[in-house]
């Protein structure tokens, strides 16, 4: 690799040049003038690089754990680099991942345990010791548990420390665990995929975009809502000549090389997908072998889909019928090396499970399961990993309607419905919810808090405990704040990923905690001790790492400690292509074009629960309003990145996108300052934004980027940057999954 050869003669030259500089030094010039200007001397300072000490880690600037090599010089982290061997990122990091250092060395971080002394939200805290903090948690939480029962506690979690919060909640006896990733992000998508294929897409998506010939993407912004491997594969696929049909009311970053951009009417993706299915079946474009051998319910589907012709779909979604047919033909032509991809944050219009079901059916019909360029099959790590006892999920009914016999019988109790917990806290029904523990979550900014009246819900709480690396709007409301060390400062349990190529990655603390902070495990253990349930906290991350090394062979152990990651490549992600048999873990053991589990519910509850998707029109736009669409920017995750100076340089505002026709109607021009008004609540945004007049957004909709609008006074940089979408999005839900539906939020746009 070495591109430069500094031979011995070069070194000598350098040495003599330094001598010249020495002589120049005697002339008594001011110190900056001393360098001599001979050619070698001029370059000398550029010919050394101290890479520093390496410690392995995985990223936590977002949730998806790319492999990171942390380089430390003199005890200070100098640089983060992608770990080439980690399949999640193959050596690359995104802007956020690269900016991890700036978050760790942020002086605005929470520097010690805190106890609230002012009013809630005021931001007045008193520094306390860890012991005082744990004692305080006990003295405040215990009476609530005594009075209302342990179910009065709800916990929210997002991050590597999740298992410990999970365990703590269950050990304390509360069933109210919520992981917002389910009901605020990909719950509906996973449910639909599991209905169809018996397994979810999973956070690390299983689309083989790198080898595909055609991607049909329904609003999954691969480039904007960046996850490194997905973006890599997306770019590689496109660069290798794959076709891209991109379906989105907004022209996002991912459209850059789209073959077709279909600017669909918001909320009508299901119509388009049904139209495509219709064309595939009508024109006999589907993979008959696959369907016969592996699919359940094809005849029902064939009958059902007749009504959904491309002409019908065209009226609903605004894409002309010819295009729909052409896309179906194009797609089928390259089958099975093609993939239809649903959105990731599938909490949109309340018909989300059924929409993804239709997209899953497209995939099933082209028979792309276990085929290069289609959907790969994940494998587990072929090592018997150490197992640890966990407290059982308490039998008490959940407050949010998730679980058997409840309103959302299909929603998993281990993930919960975060939106349901907000509601239950607001109404105090079915039973009083009096305490929250928030781990790395920020309900005020990242939920439909405007409509849900989250501030009122908070008033019903007697105790809010926040465990976080940094302040956020919600942490400002906490009664007790327990600072977590950042991912660069702590050891964590090994990251084991079931994947195309399964692997295990290590995270070791690169530096000692800068402030008086602790890892999530130690925090949970500290609390557990006070409640005398610390028997569940005997396996520290360090011990878990040590245990892992015990079950690995020597070679494996050496690889893991040398590379920070170990891959198990002896797996076959493409069993169908290699002639193997496919297995599906659905109730019928087949790919379910029709879902038998839903048969009964369909009879009981109607169309929304249909075993084969039935189209329903989206909620119509109120007069003089715009539908508020929102999406990710590649430069920010959530509150976590919003006070990071280098990411703020890349984006620190949320311009309001509007179609030129709409702007003309309202008399706005590009660059005007505007405010948003929530049509439902009448609340006006507290921050004016620049209007971006662009054809990139569908008429009748406006768009802002997600993740902004924080009013965290403890932040010196991210405070009051942009408008928060949370005050304007709807609080609907999907009747099947119970996960949120945010895209039915309507706004008026007024001049600032």
């Amino acid at each position, binding site marked *: *690799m*070495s*591109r*430069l050869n*500094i031979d011995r003669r070069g070194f000598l030259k350098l040495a003599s040049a330094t001598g010249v500089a020495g002589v120049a030094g005697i002339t008594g010039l001011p110190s*900056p*003038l*001393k*360098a001599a*200007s001979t*050619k070698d001397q*001029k*370059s000398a*300072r*550029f*010919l*050394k*690089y101290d*890479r520093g000490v390496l410690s392995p880690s995985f990223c936590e600037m977002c949730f998806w754990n790319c492999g990171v090599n942390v380089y430390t010089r003199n005890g200070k982290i*100098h*640089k983060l*680099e*992608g770990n080439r061997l980690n399949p999640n990122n193959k*050596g*690359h*990091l*995104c*802007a*956020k*991942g*690269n*900016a991890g*250092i*700036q978050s760790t060395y942020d002086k605005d971080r929470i520097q010690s345990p805190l106890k609230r002394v002012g009013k809630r939200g005021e931001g007045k805290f008193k520094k306390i010791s860890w012991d005082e903090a744990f004692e305080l948690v006990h003295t405040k939480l215990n009476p609530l548990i005594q009075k209302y029962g342990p179910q009065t506690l709800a916990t929210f979690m997002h991050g590597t420390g999740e298992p410990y919060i999970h365990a703590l909640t269950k050990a304390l006896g509360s069933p109210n665990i919520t992981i917002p990733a389910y009901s605020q992000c990909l719950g509906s998508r996973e449910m639909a995929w599991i209905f169809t294929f018996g397994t979810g897409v999973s956070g690390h998506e299983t689309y083989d975009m790198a080898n595909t010939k055609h991607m049909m993407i329904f609003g999954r912004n691969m*480039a904007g809502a*960046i996850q*490194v491997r997905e*973006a*890599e594969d*997306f*770019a*590689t696929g*496109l*660069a290798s000549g794959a076709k891209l049909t991109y379906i989105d009311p907004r*022209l996002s*970053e*991912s*459209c*850059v*090389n789209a073959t077709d*951009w279909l600017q669909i009417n918001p909320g009508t993706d299901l119509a388009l997908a049904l139209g495509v299915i219709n064309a595939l079946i009508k024109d006999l474009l589907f993979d008959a072998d696959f369907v016969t051998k592996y699919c359940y319910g094809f005849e029902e589907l064939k009958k059902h889909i007749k009504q959904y012709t491309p002409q019908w779909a065209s009226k609903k979604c605004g894409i002309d019928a010819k295009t729909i047919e052409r896309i179906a033909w194009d797609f089928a032509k390259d089958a099975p090396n093609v993939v239809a991809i649903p959105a990731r944050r599938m909490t949109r219009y309340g018909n989300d499970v059924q929409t993804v079901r239709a997209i899953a059916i497209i995939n099933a019909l082209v028979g792309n399961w276990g085929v290069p360029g289609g959907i790969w099959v994940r494998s587990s790590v072929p090592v018997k990993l150490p197992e640890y006892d966990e407290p059982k999920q308490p039998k008490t009914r959940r407050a949010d309607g998730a679980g058997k016999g409840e309103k959302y019988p299909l929603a998993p109790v281990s993930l919960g419905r975060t939106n349901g917990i907000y509601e239950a806290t607001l109404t105090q029904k079915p039973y009083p919810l009096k305490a929250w523990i928030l781990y790395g979550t920020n309900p005020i900014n990242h939920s439909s808090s405007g409509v849900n009246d989250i501030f009122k819900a908070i008033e019903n709480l007697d105790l809010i405990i926040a465990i976080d690396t940094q302040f956020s709007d919600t942490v400002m409301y906490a009664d007790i704040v327990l600072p977590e060390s950042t991912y660069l400062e702590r050891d964590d349990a090994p990251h084991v990923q079931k994947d195309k190529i399964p692997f295990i990655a290590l995270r070791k603390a690169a530096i000692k905690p800068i402030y008086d902070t602790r890892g999530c495990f130690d925090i949970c253990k500290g609390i557990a001790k006070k409640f005398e349930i610390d028997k569940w906290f005997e396996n520290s991350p360090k011990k878990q790492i040590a245990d892992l090394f015990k079950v690995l062979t020597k070679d494996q152990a050496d690889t893991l400690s040398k590379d920070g990651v170990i891959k198990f490549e002896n797996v076959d992600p493409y069993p169908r292509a290699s002639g193997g048999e496919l297995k599906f873990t659905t109730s019928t053991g087949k790919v379910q074009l029709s879902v038998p589990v839903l048969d009964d519910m369909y009879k009981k509850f109607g169309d929304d629960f249909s075993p084969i998707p039935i189209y329903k029109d989206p909620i119509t736009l109120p007069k003089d309003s715009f539908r508020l669409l929102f999406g990710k920017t*590649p*430069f920010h995750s959530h509150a976590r990145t919003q006070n990071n*100076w*280098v*990411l703020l*340089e*890349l984006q620190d505002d949320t311009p309001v996108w509007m179609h030129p026709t709409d702007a003309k109607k309202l008399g706005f021009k590009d660059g005007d300052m505007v405010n948003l008004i929530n049509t439902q609540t009448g609340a006006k945004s507290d921050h004016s934004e620049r209007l971006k007049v662009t*054809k*990139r957004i569908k008429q009748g909709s406006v768009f802002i980027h997600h993740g902004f609008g924080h009013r965290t006074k403890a932040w010196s940089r991210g405070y009051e940057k942009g408008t928060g979408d949370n005050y304007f999005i709807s609080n609907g839900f999907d009747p099947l999954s119970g996960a949120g539906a945010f895209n039915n939020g309507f706004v008026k746009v007024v001049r600032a």
Partner: protein
Amino acid sequence: MMNIVNKKLNKNQNLAMVIIGDRCVNCNACYVACKTDWEIPAIKEAYRTKVWEIESEDNEGKPTISFLPVLCNHCENAPCVTVCPTGASFKRDEDGIVLVNPDMCIGCKACMVACPYDARYYDEEKQSVDKCTFCLPRLSVGLDPACVDTCVGESRNFGDISDPDSSVAKLLKNATSISRLKEDKGTLPNVYYITINE
């Protein structure tokens, strides 16, 4: 494919960046990786590379976007080197990298004004104009430039284009189109923008 590749001068190497336009996803990882590695001041103005988002319309009036990663072009005819009064800005003979020696800069900013690519910024802490070095320090220990290393879409490629076996020379050879920025300025940039699809 092109003569410009061979139009070279008595240098040992001709280091160049070859950017595959089809692969950039506008993530700006390059921006952050570079700013972090070289401890560039925490102000918006100070950066060595970034990605422009270009919004436009096609013939039918449909909106389009494309991305343009920019950095110092390490020009053969570097105007910044020509105008520097002290020799602080210089071009290395051995590989063509354009550098600024901060010990020699008087901060007249003539180079900043002369650069057609807006590739330079003034670093007050260093008391010097500063710019992309093609990560020469990293090269000197056998690493790729920071932006190339982290490039999510593997859009950026770096190497010696005078060596026909290098990955970058091959990319140029197989490219369907090659362009450089503002070629009308006669600067002969060493950053190539290519497409690899029709």
